[in-house]
């Protein structure tokens, strides 16, 4: 080759380059293009991440091609994601899903509750009964009668009409209504719309929007290619027209193609029935407070309240009556033989001890109005302890320090009383009905002042003994005989019903064992008692009584104390003689 000689003159180099371009110029250019392309591609890949968000935003602004293109991919990705990890998706949508489910459940339950309430209310109310009778008489199903009365509004039919031709595209009717001649009605509706516009609003775009026929309204919503007419019974809210408009917009959106191509074949609009069916709604008055029902309802409430009030009065009065009777029956000295109630009065009849509280006082104490009580009481003598005691107290007034009580038929006196009062008590007891006996054993007898010194001197008298001995000295015997005189003095002052006796107590000094002392004191008391009885002087029973060294008599010195306690001492006891004569010896 020419350049191989090594002489690389500039001319040669140029020549060579020219030759090369002649021979492989096209391939060179191609090579360069490919190289650039490879380099550019690298650059684009690096930059694409940087520009992608911008690019997406730009494209999204101009049209929705991007969204459409991405949709299948996104859908696949979502499906794949759900299949792989449902938990993650669940967590992501939980915040919206939870409330939505709760709302749906609450609405469903609310609906059920409302339904039950309504059914109960209508089933039990006068209104419900009236409707049942109406249904029975007219032969119309009850549900329809309820509907007729409780209906607020109901969309009974919906027509989807081709705007230009007035031809019917689709039509739905409420299930219980007969199908009308929808196609001719659709045509006529269109015609009437045209007629109204031509007659009253020529030249404007508006048209007949709604008209009323009796209880029915026809609402016509117009779109560019179709009309939606709804036949509504009752009073519909303005929102209904809005909803119809939305439905019509949806139809325009979903059936844009078929609407544009429509030439009489309604088949493509078959699926529009479902959309129209959503317009068929029935709204009934579920408040339960209908304008017609309010006044009768209030009347019923008033009747109920009145009945409840009367019932309360009757029951309260019955309870009061029973309580009053129970109290009267428990009252001492009252025997209720007959009791009945009039409308406003009470009638009582029975027996009453004059000493018992009057029935009217008892009833007044319970808070009853006694002016309406008519009572008839026959007098009788009650053996009720309470009344008997009251009776006794009217006969014998207890002095201060004496209490009277009743146990069975025995009147028991407790305390300290003078002899003459005790005499009076015994004397009058027989006259008191209901008392069988008087017990004064718990009474301390207060001696008359005149004989009290005699009793005191008896109490001061002692019989002294030698140590360990129970033999009575001559002096002691003389002293004992003298006690008889004291007793007789006292008895004489008390009266024939009374007996005065000597209570004899023997003692010892502290020498010797307690057992021996007890026996010795008993001996001393017995010796003294025997001597007294022998001399005709009464002693109390049981006798004799030795108390050993317990309860010793006081003295100045130990020796003196030993001496005075080797003794027998005495006390005067007075008592009324047993009825029927002298006490047995």
């Amino acid at each position, binding site marked *: 080759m020419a350049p191989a000689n090594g002489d690389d003159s500039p001319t040669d180099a140029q020549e060579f380059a020219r030759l090369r371009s002649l021979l492989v110029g096209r391939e060179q250019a191609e090579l360069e293009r490919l190289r650039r392309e490879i380099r550019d591609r690298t650059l684009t890949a690096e930059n694409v991440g940087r520009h992608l968000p911008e690019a997406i935003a730009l494209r999204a602004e101009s049209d929705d091609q991007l969204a459409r293109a991405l949709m299948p991919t996104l859908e696949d990705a979502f499906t794949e994601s759900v299949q792989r990890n449902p938990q993650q998706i669940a967590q992501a949508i939980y915040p919206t899903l939870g409330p939505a489910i709760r709302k749906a459940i609450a609405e469903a339950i609310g609906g059920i509750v409302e339904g039950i309430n309504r059914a109960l209310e209508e089933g039990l109310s006068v209104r419900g009964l009236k409707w049942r009778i109406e249904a029975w008489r007219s032969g119309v199903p009850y549900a329809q009668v309820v509907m007729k009365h409780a209906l607020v509004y109901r969309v009974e039919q919906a027509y989807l009409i*081709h705007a*230009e*031709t*007035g*031809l*019917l595209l689709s039509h739905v009717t409420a299930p219980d209504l007969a199908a009308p*001649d929808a*196609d*001719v*009605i659709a*045509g*006529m509706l269109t*015609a*009437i719309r*045209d*007629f109204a*516009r*031509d007659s009253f609003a020529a030249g404007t775009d508006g048209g007949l929007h709604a008209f009323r026929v009796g209880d029915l309204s026809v609402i016509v919503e117009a779109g560019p290619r179709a009309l939606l007419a709804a036949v509504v019974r009752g009073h519909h809210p303005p929102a209904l027209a809005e909803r119809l408009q939305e439905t019509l917009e949806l139809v325009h959106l979903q059936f844009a193609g078929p609407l544009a191509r429509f*030439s*009489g*074949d*309604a*088949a493509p609009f078959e699926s529009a029935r479902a959309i129209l069916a959503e317009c068929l709604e029935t709204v009934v008055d579920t408040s339960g407070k209908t304008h017609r029902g309010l006044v009768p309802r209030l009347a019923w409430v008033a009747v109920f309240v009145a009945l409840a009030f009367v019932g309360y009065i009757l029951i309260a009065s019955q309870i009061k009556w029973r309580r009053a009777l129970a109290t009267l029956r428990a009252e001492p000295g009252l025997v209720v033989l007959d009791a009945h109630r009039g409308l406003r009065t009470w009638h009582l009849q029975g027996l009453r001890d004059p000493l018992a509280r009057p029935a009217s006082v008892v009833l007044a104490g319970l808070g009853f109005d006694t002016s309406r009580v008519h009572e008839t009481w026959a007098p009788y003598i009650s053996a009720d302890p309470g009344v008997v005691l009251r009776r006794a107290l009217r006969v014998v007034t207890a002095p201060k320090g004496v209490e009277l009580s009743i146990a069975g038929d025995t009147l028991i006196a407790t305390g300290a009383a003078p002899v003459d009062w005790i005499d009076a008590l015994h004397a009058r007891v027989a006259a008191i009905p209901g008392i069988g006996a008087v017990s004064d054993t718990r009474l301390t007898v207060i001696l008359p002042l005149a004989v009290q010194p005699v009793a005191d001197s008896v109490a001061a008298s002692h019989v002294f003994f030698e140590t360990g001995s129970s033999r009575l000295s001559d002096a002691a015997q003389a002293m004992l005989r003298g006690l008889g005189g004291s007793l007789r003095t006292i008895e004489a002052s008390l009266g024939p019903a009374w007996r005065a006796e000597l209570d004899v107590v023997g003692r010892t000094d502290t020498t010797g064992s307690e057992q021996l002392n007890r026996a010795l004191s008993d001996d001393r008391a017995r010796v003294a008692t025997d001597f007294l009885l022998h001399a005709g002087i009464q002693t109390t029973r049981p006798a004799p009584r030795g108390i050993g060294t317990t309860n010793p008599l006081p003295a100045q010195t130990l020796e003196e104390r030993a001496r005075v306690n080797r003794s027998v001492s005495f006390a005067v006891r007075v008592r009324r003689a047993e009825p029927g004569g002298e006490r047995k010896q």
Partner: protein
Amino acid sequence: MIQKKVCMVGVFATGKTSLVRRFVHSKFSDQYLSTVGVKIDRKPVRVKEQDVNLLLWDLEGRDGAQDIQTSYLRGSSGVLYVVDGTRRETLVQIAEIHELVSKSIGDVPSAIALNKADLTSAWIINDGDRAELGKRPWHVFETSALTGAGVERAFVWLAEQMGSVAS
């Protein structure tokens, strides 16, 4: 079910109403004609093995073309003109009405019913008139509401024409 809107136009007392009453399903009373100016009825026909419901918009021009509400013509796939063969003035008026219809909705399949064909002896339409009618783009049927002659044919023909137009 294919539906087509067909306008039936004619002047007062051309027997249009009796034509309709005998052959179509009528829901509305004739009073609509005098109040709203239109009455709509349904006429089912069978064309090429297919049921077609013709919705007949019965329009009436009491004194000719000026009484026809053109808005009623809108969307019509065909027009049936009704002429009283015994009253020549109806023929003149129908020409005016045809002008009006053409102006409103363009050329659609049209047929003319020369009604009262049962009274041909009383017809006062001459051959010249017939030739005049033939110049216009419509098909002429002689019909009789009394005997029923030609009426069904006119409707079927219209339906066929409209079908071809539509497809």
